[in-house]
């Protein structure tokens, strides 16, 4: 029997599949479609201190093999997440959930992290210092080693839960940011967030997205994500949640061979709502075919020799 279990920062997952933040809401839409307890875990929508409407529409554009989004962290704010979304989630999801934390200052990151940590449902904090769609905060912190270090430090002191810093590929050297997070006591890293891109409507001669730029995700970014995971795996000792363009069980194996301990699935959930269910069901057969008995043993496997 193929063993799909992995351990992420001390918490065991039935399988490495984690729907990525922003593509799975707070879980309830998907719980209407299938039993989401089959997932390893999932990362809920990026949450800030105050409720946010986000950017004007259009927020979405299609690209070859992917999509752009400029949602701009629309969320109901941390109070509503704790008082409304998490109790709703508890009715349909029994496993530890990953809380995606966003902010516009180090204080905000710390405050949101502290509030979400109080919930027993939260297993890990995934700290988003890589959102390309808001004008302050977000990527401002994730773009420099000093910024990443400052947020890691602030969140580290605000929680006892595992802190996973979510990194952006829109930087010169992602390993430098990864090392800064490790040095400040991060327990894990999650990468990659979306790549900054844009489209122009050639009939209207205007950008498709109201925000002009958006974050690219989907199959098109898989090689970039894989390269980032590969580099970061060699640079730090932290476990990695690898994501970006994952669409199949084979992609999961490939991402793990590059160095991922767990694997995020984002845009695929939007175009194919049963994507994660399908990937989880495909995994054992794919493992069998590749001669993998214990999935946890293949992390970083492509680096040997």
């Amino acid at each position, binding site marked *: 029997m193929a063993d799909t279990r992995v351990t992420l920062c001390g918490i065991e997952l039935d399988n490495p599949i984690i729907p990525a933040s922003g593509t799975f809401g707070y879980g309830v839409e998907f719980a209407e479609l299938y039993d989401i307890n089959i997932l390893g875990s999932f990362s809920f929508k990026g949450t800030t201190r105050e409720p946010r409407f986000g950017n004007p529409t259009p927020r*979405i554009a299609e690209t070859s093999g992917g999509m752009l989004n400029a949602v701009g962290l629309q969320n109901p704010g941390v109070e509503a997440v704790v008082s409304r979304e998490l109790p709703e989630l508890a009715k349909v999801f029994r496993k530890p959930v990953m809380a995606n934390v966003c902010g516009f200052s180090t204080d905000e990151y710390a405050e949101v992290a502290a509030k979400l940590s109080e919930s027993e449902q939260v297993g890990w904090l995934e700290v988003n210092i890589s959102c390309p769609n808001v004008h302050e905060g977000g990527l401002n912190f994730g773009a420099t080693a000093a910024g990443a270090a400052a947020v890691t430090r602030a969140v580290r002191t605000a929680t006892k839960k595992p802190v996973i810093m979510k990194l952006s590929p829109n930087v010169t050297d992602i390993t430098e940011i990864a090392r800064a997070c490790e040095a400040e006591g991060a327990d894990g890293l999650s990468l990659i967030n979306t790549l900054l891109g844009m489209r122009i409507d050639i009939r209207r001669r205007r950008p498709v997205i109201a925000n002009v730029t958006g974050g690219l995700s989907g199959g098109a970014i898989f090689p970039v994500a894989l390269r980032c995971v590969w580099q970061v795996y060699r640079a730090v000792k932290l476990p990695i949640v690898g994501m970006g363009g994952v669409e199949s069980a084979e992609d999961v194996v490939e991402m793990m061979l590059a160095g991922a301990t767990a694997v995020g699935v984002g845009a695929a959930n939007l175009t194919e709502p049963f994507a994660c269910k399908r990937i989880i069901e495909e995994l054992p057969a794919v493992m069998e075919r590749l001669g993998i008995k214990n999935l946890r043993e293949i992390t970083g496997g492509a680096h040997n020799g």
Partner: protein
Amino acid sequence: MKQGLFELISNEKIAKDVYRMVLCGDVSAITAPGQFVNIKLEGRFLRRPISVCDLDGSADRLTLVYKTVGGGTRQMAEMTPGAVLDLLSGLGNGFDVERSGARPLLVGGGVGTPPMLLLCRRLVARGARPIAVTGFGSADEVFLSDELRDAGAEVIVATMDGSAGVKGLVTDAMTGLEYTYFYACGPEAMLRAVDAAAPESVAGELSFEERMGCGFGACMGCSCETKYGAKRICKDGPVLRREEIIW
């Protein structure tokens, strides 16, 4: 919402750049007129949202009417009987037929007209006598008039150039009409004009379009602000009530 495979039964041109596609499959998730389906197309990352135009539950038949505006819809126009399409069906809230009163007004602008057909059938089945006002550029673009009439509506067509029906906008064709409620679907400028033209005492609902990432409420790609808070066009809409809209 359901994901399912549908077989293409027919796909014919019914007006300039406009096609009617009949599909066969499990339509059980479709519960209200004004809902939409989201269609996967080979080689396109995002699905394409298209309104439910007509439905025959007992025969598992679904009719869509669409206009070729870009690569995806042009690809649809080239499909032939026997082709199999992957659809998410039963998306969105749809129109509320219970609020119509005896004499509802249905306003469709261009490819906002398709959902009016199933709506008309459902209203007539409840004993209402709908008036349908549809607006197009010119005579060669007009479609669904006969179908709406056969379904029991009094039909008034408006064309911009006057080559068919009333010359002008749907709002020109609305002048003097008396109605108990209104339902509208079309370009946003038309929706705004319809809202402005309807007497304040008459309630109504309007169906909106937005670029979508998922179509079932997961990505927040399609949000709009309403007087009742942020709503997702794909899940809490596409139909919004007149009184909640912030123009």
